[in-house]
């Protein structure tokens, strides 16, 4: 059953808010909504709280969760809001994939609206393009012209657990420092970054006191792709793909 098709008719503030909210959230919960709609109703019970949520961490936890599920050998489908992943690829990898640029885009709109999907690309074409990526073909930090609209926030450097209901996922900004215009260092082990596996209250507390979980003394990168000398040899030693 699909909630979207039933969210019509009726009157009153409650229903109109619920309908609007359902349509919005269903976009990034979409595939699961189709199959587990009743489960997701729990997210819509008290709409007065919605304005105070960190929707970025909600959406990111969901995306990480779905990408993780895809890592299993027998998984055939990616659930979740694929526009996010596709938009992310368009922003950071201008040489990969076909996209159309929207002529009428202005910076007060979300950056995803700058693009629309072009002709599909075959995976056998993309794989070698990924294998031969060079640092200069990547836009590590593509949002400079968008900062007036979305100023940089220190909390985006948070290292630790994000949470969506009972799902928890590690946000490890330290591993992708070039995306923050810092020099990439050899990162800590994930178990150190997560500081063990805290309970829900402790996760909430760390998030609200994010300043204690953001490292402030990284070195500004002189070039977008700068990393410490040992980084690439470390990376090749730990990566399964290299």
């Amino acid at each position, binding site marked *: *059953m699909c909630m979207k098709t*039933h969210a019509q008719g009726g009157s009153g503030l*409650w229903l109109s*808010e*619920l309908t609007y909210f359902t*349509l*919005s959230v269903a*976009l990034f919960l979409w595939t699961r909504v189709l199959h587990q709609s*009743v489960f997701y*109703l*729990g*997210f819509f*019970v008290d709409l007065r709280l*919605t*304005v105070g*949520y*960190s*929707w*970025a*961490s909600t*959406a*990111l936890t969901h995306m990480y969760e779905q990408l*993780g599920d895809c890592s299993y050998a027998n998984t055939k489908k*990616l659930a979740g*809001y694929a526009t*996010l*992943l*596709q938009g992310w*690829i368009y922003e950071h990898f201008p040489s990969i994939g076909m996209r159309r640029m929207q002529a009428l885009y202005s910076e007060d*709109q*979300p*950056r995803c609206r700058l*693009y629309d*999907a*072009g002709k*599909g690309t075959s*995976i*056998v*074409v993309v794989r070698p393009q*990924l294998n031969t*990526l*060079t640092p200069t073909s990547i836009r*590590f930090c593509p949002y400079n012209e*968008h900062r007036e609209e979305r100023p940089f*926030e220190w909390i*985006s450097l948070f290292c630790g657990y994000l*949470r969506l*209901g009972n799902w928890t*996922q*590690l946000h*490890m*900004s330290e*591993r*992708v420092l*070039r*995306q*923050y215009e810092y020099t990439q260092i050899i990162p800590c082990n994930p178990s150190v970054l997560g500081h063990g596996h805290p309970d829900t209250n402790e996760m*909430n507390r760390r*998030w609200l006191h994010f300043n204690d979980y953001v490292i402030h003394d990284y070195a500004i990168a002189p070039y977008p792709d700068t*990393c410490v000398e040992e980084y690439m040899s470390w990376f090749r030693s730990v990566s399964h793909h290299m």
Partner: protein
Amino acid sequence: MSGLGGLLHTSFESLDRGLLCAFVERWHAEINNFHLPVGEMTITLDDLSNLLHLSIVGHFYTQKTLDSDLANDLLVESLRVDHGLASEETRHC
């Protein structure tokens, strides 16, 4: 009012399956990033703020516990789902 209004206009008309799958193959779930020849990259909170205009600051979303009675009421009263269909749907809640 929810802070999600921008999402109504961001979805691409079509998804590039080959492009998405090629990146998904590079995903490492234990560290939540893509392994590429240049090192690690991932989708960050800052990406969410810029790509979708979602707020980073705020509380983590906490799901209300949903029993079958409440689920049934929500389906029937708020979403105008037929009573019989709703009961069938919430039977396993």
